[in-house]
Structures are given as structure tokens and as C-alpha cells.
């Protein structure tokens, strides 16, 4: 990482929310950058203070409250029938996203079935090979310019 991490990156870093590569880059930067380390320590101490305050403010519910909530919930009333469950599924708010997801999945499946990671062979290879094998034809020089001088691609298709 050449530039200093942003305040948002430092906050995300302190909470372990960065992607592994970015996390490693910020860690490496902090080890060598005193100003950023100071900003991070400041951020970390602020987070710690907030966490301590929240912990100190937590209150246990009175012993009878939790029991009365559970007893108020009647299992026969919270288990709807199959028609009610179907109706719930058919609500537009649920049905439309589900239908969209099904369509996307179907299209993706069709697309991957028809275009599944197809290997592509550069046309330059064919032109080059044609020229190479025609060099035995009388008065044919074969490759005037080898394709190797025009491309960075190696023979095995790697760069």
C-alpha cells in the first residue's frame, strides 16, 4: 500500500472487516507508518471506550419478564395452516424477488451450459502455423514475420 489508509479503512481494519488482501496491506503499512499507527491507536482506544461503556450499560431483564413473554406465545397460534403459508409466499414482496431469483438462476444455468468455460484459440496461431507449414512450398518463404514478434503470448497460451 503506497498511500495512507483512509479513516474508513482504519475503522474497518480495527473491526476486522477488511478483505484479507487489504487487511494485510493495511497491517504492513501500519508497521512502517508512525502517523497512521497513531491514528489507528486513537481509533482503537475510542472503540474500546465505547465497548466498555456499552458493556457497563447492559442490564439483565428481571427474572419474570422472559418467562412471561414465552408463556404468552401460544404455539397453535404461531403455526399457520398451509394455505396461510402459501398465501404468505405469494405476497408480492416475497413472490417477485423469488421469481426474479429463479429466472436469474435459470438463465445463468442455461448460459453456463451453452458457454461453459470454452477454450479459445487465437486466430493468430492458425495463421502462424499455416505460414510455417507452407515454407516447404516452392518459392514460399513461410513466415515473413514470426507471430512471436507481435504478441506477448507464449506458446502455451500464457503471458
Amino acid at each position: 500500500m503506497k498511500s495512507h489508509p483512509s479513516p474508513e479503512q482504519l475503522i474497518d481494519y480495527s473491526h476486522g472487516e477488511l478483505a484479507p488482501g487489504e487487511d494485510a496491506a493495511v497491517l504492513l503499512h501500519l508497521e512502517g507508518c508512525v502517523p497512521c499507527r497513531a491514528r489507528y491507536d486513537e481509533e482503537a482506544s475510542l472503540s474500546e471506550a465505547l465497548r466498555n461503556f456499552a458493556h457497563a450499560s447492559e442490564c439483565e431483564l428481571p427474572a419474570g419478564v422472559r418467562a412471561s413473554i414465552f408463556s404468552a406465545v401460544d404455539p397453535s397460534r404461531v403455526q399457520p395452516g398451509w394455505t396461510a403459508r402459501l398465501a404468505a409466499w405469494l405476497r408480492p414482496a416475497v413472490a417477485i424477488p423469488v421469481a426474479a431469483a429463479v429466472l436469474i438462476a435459470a438463465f445463468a444455468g442455461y448460459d453456463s451450459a451453452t458457454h461453459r468455460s470454452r477454450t479459445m484459440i487465437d486466430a493468430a496461431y492458425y495463421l502462424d502455423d499455416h505460414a510455417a507449414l507452407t515454407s516447404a512450398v516452392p518459392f514460399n518463404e513461410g513466415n515473413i514475420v514470426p507471430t512471436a514478434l507481435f504478441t506477448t503470448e507464449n506458446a502455451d497460451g500464457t503471458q
Partner: protein
Amino acid sequence: MARNSGLAFFAAILLGATPAPPPAADLLREAMTAPQRVSYVGEVQVLSIGPQHADATIYRVEHRAPDLTRRWYMAPQDLYGDSVVSRGSTTYSIDVKRQRVVVSQGEDADEEIAARGNFDILMNNYNAVYAPDENVSGRIVHVVLLNNKYTGQTTMRVHIDARTNLVLERQQYATNGSLIAQTRVEQIRYTNSIPAALFQIPSGMQRVEGAAHGQESTDVEQVISSAGFDARVPKYLPEGFSPIAGDVVSIKNVPTLHLIYSDGIRTVSLFQNEKDAAVDLSHYHAISTTVADHPAHYVEDGPTVLLAWADGNRHFALVGELSLAELEKIGASVLP
């Protein structure tokens, strides 16, 4: 007869006249092997002319007989400073901009045998006749026309140095008579003092293997049977064309069969694989067409046309200096 022509030869020398050239076919045969005997330096201009535009390549050439050659590219700009050194059957493409040397291995002995066989194919399909002598770079050249026996059209003009038998100029024509390729050697100087150091490969550059072109073989039936799949061959070829070579090569782990057909001058290659490996035409201006109702695309690279299409998982590419119509006809005959 031989004694008479010998006497005529010496008489011509004594009289200071240019000796009568041998039969055109014999001169062509001599010209094919002249670089094995003649060392020279010069400048070569190559024109490749497509239907829409032409490409020019210019390079300096140093050739030390029998088999050391260096080409130093002067144009186009992208190639300026790059060079290709051929040492026997090995070719080194020296890419100065990328600081690398691409090494490609050929098969000299097989090529010689193939060249002899292909010369016979040439003579079966073309009549070699003389045109009036001309002057190229201040040198007298014999001009040989190669006329197609089936169409009567001149397909190639070869200008051969009267003293060294080296080809100094060559023009190739399409079936409609238009010029499609020209190679011309200028500023030629014959010399036997070209230092071997000129053909050294520079050190300090990354060396990479060039594209593998497979084990080229003139036993086409054997090549087809070694493809590893049920290969298809064209049922139609233009008059005079016959299979001359083939190879099977793995490109990106895809076994690809390459068959090449020729009439001695014009050539067409058929590539095929059955691994659903399509031809990537994204670097070219591809135009849509059809091959027997199958969607197809073609691109033009100078006079060379590449036609690509698929039949299920089987992908084909035809490459040749033939018209699109002829390639489409060949392609249609490849399909079952």
C-alpha cells in the same frame, strides 16, 4: 543434344553474349536451392495485398550459405529493430522491445524432402515458360511465368538472377488476376565474407519456446489416424490441390489436427478440434458468413483468408490464399 547445348553455351561466352538459359523448369529447380550455395546481403521488400489494403514489410538480410540467415526489420514501425536469425533448422526471433528471444525448431531434412515433392506437384499443375529477360537492381534476370494448367492463368512470376540463380523478385496473382504478393530483393551484394558473429544470438535476454507446430509429416493418412478423434477431410478441393503435409499439435491442451493442401503455389490449411475450442477472432475485424448454413466468420490477413465455423463441439478453421467463395466451398465439403 547435350553436346550441342554445351557448345552453344561456350560459343555464347566466347562471343560475350548471355548464354541461353536452361529449360524453365530446370532453372526453377536450381533457383530453389540457390541459397544453399550463394551468400549475399541486401534489402527485401515484401508486399502482402488483401482485398481492402496492403501490408509492407522491409528488412535487411544477411545470408551466409548454406543455412545462416539474419533478417533485421526496418518496417513496419512495430518491428523496427527486431530481427530473426535462422541457424539451420532453428529460428530465433529477437524481440528487443520485450527483451526476449523466441526459439522455434524446424525440421530441415523433412523440409527438403517435402520441398522436392512439392516441386513435383508444382510441375504437375503449372507450365513454366520464359518471359523476356528483365533488369532487377542492375542485374539481368530470367523471368519465368508459372501458368496454371487448368485455367491458363499466370499465378506466379519469378525473376531469377542470370548469374547466381537466386530469386530476386517474385509476384503472385489471385485467380482473378490481381496481384496478391510481391517479394523483391534490392541493393543485393554477393559476398563470401559475412562474419559468423553476425548470426550470434544476443545474451541477456529471456529465452522462451516458440509455438510448437507439431511433428510435420508428409504421410497425411498417418497424421489423420494419429489425431485421436474421427477427423474429417474435405470432399472438394480446387483443381490440382492435394494433401502435402499435416501435424497434430496440442494448443492449450486441445488436440488440433492441421492438414495442408497445395497445388504447388497456392495453399490451404484445415484445422479442426472436437473439444469445443473456438477460434478467437477478437483481435481481428471478423465478418459473418455461412458454411453450408452453419454460422461462420472470416478475417483477412493480407491475401490470406481465415474462415472459422463449428459443427456441434467440432470447430474448424480454413486458412489460405484462396477466395472466400472457394474456402466456403471447401468448408461445406468438410461437413458430413
